[in-house]
């Protein structure tokens, strides 16, 4: 009988990705609801990581070991996790929706003839019935999803779906080391690196005016720049603006760009996809200007104007100049 919940802990060379603890919080919540115990899995022999994880309220920490797990590769991780899942036979395998997990977890699930319930933002357990909620259409819709078929169910959680500080600590879980077989690894990683030191550090900005695809063309950026100047702030952008080369990549806000929390964040013509929101949702005051009243950016905005940014921005700039003089 499949039983229990496995939660995957991501670390790189001993540094744990903290969304792993959000996944622990999710697993504990599910475990409490479904009456199942929770075990954590750490890949690669790292006693420090195992010890850190063992401080949480868990049935056990499984340290799956093989020299090939020292550097992350999708081949080695999928093999190792497959061994762990087959050995433990769990009901659920929960993972943080990180770029590393995205890279190997679908391969893992495929070995069990299924995919992942990916990038969940919520979960509700009513007895044996678990409903996962995930975003569709770049954040414009939510979908409730139930998993069917044979266990295990593989699910990943968006960063911020659960809070790491809600993960319960315990008396010290047992660490079990499990040697695992890993087959051929068909890709060779080089060391991770950052591009040339970022020229602008937006994390210290008090005011950010961010533009999205609604700005339409590179020439129109001047309009937003004037607003930023009037507010004494910095200009930033969503990904497509940097992809197009209209602004340098160090002004990109979001999961693959910078994370900011200014006093004021003005989003002009940005729809509010989850990968953008994770980079700015902790800003103190959020203003959104968008012509689509259903744009998901409004879900987290304090002030919203439904309308054409080309009408709003010049007036707003003038009004702010007046107030400041």
């Amino acid at each position, binding site marked *: 009988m499949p039983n229990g919940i496995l939660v995957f802990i991501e670390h790189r060379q001993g540094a744990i990705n903290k969304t792993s603890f959000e996944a622990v919080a999710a697993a504990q919540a599910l475990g409490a609801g479904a009456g199942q115990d929770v075990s954590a899995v750490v890949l690669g022999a790292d006693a420090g990581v195992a010890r850190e994880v063992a401080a949480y309220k868990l049935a056990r920490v499984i340290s799956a070991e093989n020299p090939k797990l020292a550097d992350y590769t999708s081949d080695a991780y999928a093999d190792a996790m497959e061994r762990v899942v087959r050995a433990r036979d769990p009901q659920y395998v929960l993972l943080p929706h990180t770029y590393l997990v995205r890279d190997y977890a679908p391969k893992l699930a495929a070995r069990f003839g299924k995919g992942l319930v990916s990038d969940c933002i919520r979960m509700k357990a009513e007895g044996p019935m678990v409903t996962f909620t995930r975003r569709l259409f770049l*954040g414009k819709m*939510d979908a409730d999803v139930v998993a069917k078929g044979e266990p295990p169910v593989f699910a990943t959680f968006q960063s911020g779906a659960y809070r790491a500080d809600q993960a319960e600590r315990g008396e010290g879980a047992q660490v079990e080391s499990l040697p695992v077989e890993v087959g051929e690894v068909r890709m060779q990683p080089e060391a991770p690196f950052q591009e040339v030191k970022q020229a602008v550090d937006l994390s210290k900005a008090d005011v950010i005016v961010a533009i999205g695809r609604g700005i339409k063309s590179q020439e129109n950026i001047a309009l937003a720049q004037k607003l930023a100047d009037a507010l004494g702030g910095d200009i930033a952008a969503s990904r497509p603006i940097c992809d197009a080369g209209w602004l340098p990549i160090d002004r990109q806000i979001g999961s693959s760009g910078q994370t900011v929390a200014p006093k004021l964040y003005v989003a002009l013509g940005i729809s509010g996809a989850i990968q953008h929101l994770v980079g700015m949702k902790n800003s103190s005051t959020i203003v959104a200007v968008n012509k689509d009243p259903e744009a998901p950016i409004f879900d987290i905005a304090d002030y919203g104007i439904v309308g054409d940014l080309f009408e709003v921005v010049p007036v707003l700039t003038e009004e702010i100049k007046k107030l400041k003089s």
Partner: protein
Amino acid sequence: MKIVVLMKQVPNRDAILRVNREEKWIEEGDLSFEVSESDGYALEEALRLKEKKGGEVVVCSLGPQRVKSVIKDALARGADRAIHILGDNLEHVGPFATAKILAEAIREEQADLVLTGLQSDDYGYGQTGVIAAELLGLPHATIVIEVDYSGEQLRVKRELESGWYQWYTMRTPCLLTIQSGISQIRYATLKGIMAAKKKEIREVQPAADAAAAGEFQTVTRIYLPLKQKQTQFLGDGDAKRGAAQLAEKLRNEARVI
């Protein structure tokens, strides 16, 4: 070198979406459609590789007749031929079955490279390519932002979180999922559009066992996201008045100016 590109058609990104009566999907009747964003970049990368290395670019799309517009556009941009896996309601079968149908449809092509987008703009599973790689027995790399195939070996630059990157050396054949922004996408030329008319679009049925791979996750309901904040909407449809009100609020309420 043979490159297969998997391309999906999705509702236009600026479309106003309405939940359908069954609350399982959206009303499609009056929607317009376009290619999922990262798939356009996957095609562009394939065309650039072909320009350097020679060979053939084959696009493959699964969906109803309307996806022909995505296919024709890809052929006009320079793809050589296409496979259209025809089926109604196959869009909703879930990531595993989708990947299986696609993998079976391209298996015989024995491509050197399979390129996909990293994530579709509608369901956004972010996994179809990786599952297809597993089913085809190919190594893969995801969130690829640069491809270096100047030498003998294929090196790909993967995006990690928060401005970090990592190069991987891959062996071919392999599958890459391409991130938006890898390069600037070309437009179709008039000449390309004319040439596309003569290119092959092969219609195929999904392999029976693939189509029957089954759903392991079911959407029970879709709905507009719940609001996380009480948003004060300003201007009431009058953009200029909204701007004036906003300036006042930012000063007196939020106290940020």
